[in-house]
């Protein structure tokens, strides 16, 4: 069973006046089949955790370990992490002009699966996944994220999640900017992947709204660059009522 283990992770970014520490000792274990919600105020370091796990060059790991089934993730390049089974659904997916969605998906699936998917089954697979996410087939011929609405970008991220079948899925504020319909469609997509039982999900969010659609097994409150409190789904209800104030005043926001 795939397990992502984060131990005492410290991460800095380069700021104007030297490096600034953002993650200050994160400990977290995510197992296949589990869903962990990471909640916290703006600037608490949630997104930094997501991007550090994916290997974004902006973030410098200054301490700690991250392993996937015992393999050292921190030593892997960005593409190696993806091929090892780490997937990051981004909050702000970037435009890639000149590259069509269909070309991108196939190139990506070929890289992650280690061989080119058979054309006939692949076309069906993509078509089916797109239908389930209520995406227009014409979408496949558009350039990656170019001119996409906020909702289209998020559906496209979840489409990739469905096709790439990662071991660990990190969803960085996938709910942000979505109206109720889009949130439901995107959440259903995430749930389809979760129901396979083959993915460990790290759901990063500011709001509890998405947790009405995606039920977490664990909720962690992120504050001041580390996990301040962990609990079950009931912790989200408490946050819904009381907000993050208690955590912010305790530790101070790093932003």
């Amino acid at each position: 069973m795939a397990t992502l283990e984060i131990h005492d992770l410290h991460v800095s970014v380069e700021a104007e006046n030297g490096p600034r520490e953002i993650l200050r000792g994160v400990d977290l274990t995510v197992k296949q089949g589990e869903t962990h919600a990471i909640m916290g105020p703006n600037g608490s370091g949630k997104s930094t955790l997501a991007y550090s796990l994916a290997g974004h060059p902006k973030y410098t790991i200054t301490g700690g370990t991250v392993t996937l089934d015992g393999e050292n993730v921190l030593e892997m390049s960005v593409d190696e992490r993806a091929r090892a089974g780490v997937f990051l659904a981004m909050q702000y997916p970037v435009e890639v002009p000149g590259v069509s969605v269909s070309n991108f998906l196939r190139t990506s699936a070929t890289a992650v699966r280690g061989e080119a998917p058979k054309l006939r089954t692949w076309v069906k697979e993509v078509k089916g996944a797109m239908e389930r996410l209520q995406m227009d087939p014409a979408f496949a011929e558009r350039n990656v994220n170019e001119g996409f609405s906020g909702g289209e970008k998020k559906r496209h991220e979840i489409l990739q999640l469905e096709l790439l079948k990662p071991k660990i899925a990190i969803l960085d504020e996938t709910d942000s900017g979505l109206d109720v319909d889009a949130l439901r469609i995107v959440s259903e997509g995430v749930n389809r992947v979760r129901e396979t039982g083959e993915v460990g999900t790290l759901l990063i969010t500011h709001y509890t709204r998405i947790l009405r659609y995606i039920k977490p097994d664990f909720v962690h409150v992120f504050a001041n660059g580390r996990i301040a409190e962990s609990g079950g789904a009931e912790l989200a209800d408490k946050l819904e009522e009381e907000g993050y104030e208690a955590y912010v005043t305790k530790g101070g926001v790093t932003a």
Partner: protein
Amino acid sequence: MADNTPAGSTTDGAIQVGGPKQPIDARVSAPASYDVADFPVPHGREEEWRFTPLERLRGLHDGTAVATGAGVKVEVEAPEGVTVETVGRDDARLGKAGKPVDRVAAQAYSSFEKASVVSIPKETQLTEPVRISVHGEGGVAFGHQVVEVGAFSEAVVVLDHTGDATLAANVEYLLGDGAKLTVVSVQDWDASAVHAAQHTALVGRDASFKSVIVTFGGDLVRLHPRVVYGAPGGEAELYGLYFTDRGQHQEHRLFVDHDTPHCRSNVAYKGALQGKDAHAVWIGDVLIRAEAEGTDTYELNRNLVLTDGARVDSVPNLEIETGEIVGAGHASATGRFEDEQLFYLMARGIPADEARRLVVRGFFAELVQQIGLPDVEERLLAKIEAELGASVA
């Protein structure tokens, strides 16, 4: 991409409507002429020379370049029905498309000894392309080429430049009424070649001219693709691709002269740049004269900067002297292949070099399709691969 202009590039286009305060023709330092003596020697400050490193023109601009025996070897491979002739300077078919517009083109016109004329008779549909190979043998050469397509004929011509040379040339395309001509000009020179040329098309009534300029090689390439219309109803599509590598200067200066009613033009040039001192220049001048009612024109230039140290100058100019037109527009943008794009693709498992290939191939795809000749397309894609491979190494 449009709002992401790297340091060291310009995209200062202009649309001028109404009476021309400074018409395109007046911005040049001398009016067009067949005689080199009518042009002053450029010094680099002139509008039409300000982007060009004159010291790398090997004397083509100041009269010091003299033709040598081993200049270029020209071979023409033509399907049946096509006439291929070598003619003297006095042949009546030379110079019909228009006068040379700068000193180097005039130098070529004043200096060539023999010209090549390829004629496709009227009402002929060629099933195979005419292939004109210009192979540099290391010397200095002045060339003149005419391609004449008779009324209602259809032809594809490939002009293929390889080897090493210092070449100044004029190429004329004469399209009869209703003729359709596609020209693919490939600049696949060795790294040391210098090539300056004017390609002028005279488009007849209801005729269609399509040009695809593909520039990869050379130390310095400076081309003037130009279109003039002889009668109403003409149509011109001007496409271009360039891949400007370290130290290379590649300059494309287009001019579409809408002086005739009810003609169309569409321009799309795309370039990728990589390496220190790679310099691409794109000038797109479109003039819609007062008498050219019913004109429809659009021009576009896109540049993709792959590494630091490259420079793009992209200047579209549209001048409109009549309001009675169908449409006119231009667009120019220079973008960087960014770290964020690379990260996004790599985060989906795609290795860095493959990600770069994916983006560059995608960038050029729509223009590569315009070539329509599988062998040229494949060669082009192979070149792109090789250039990208060189950047990773």
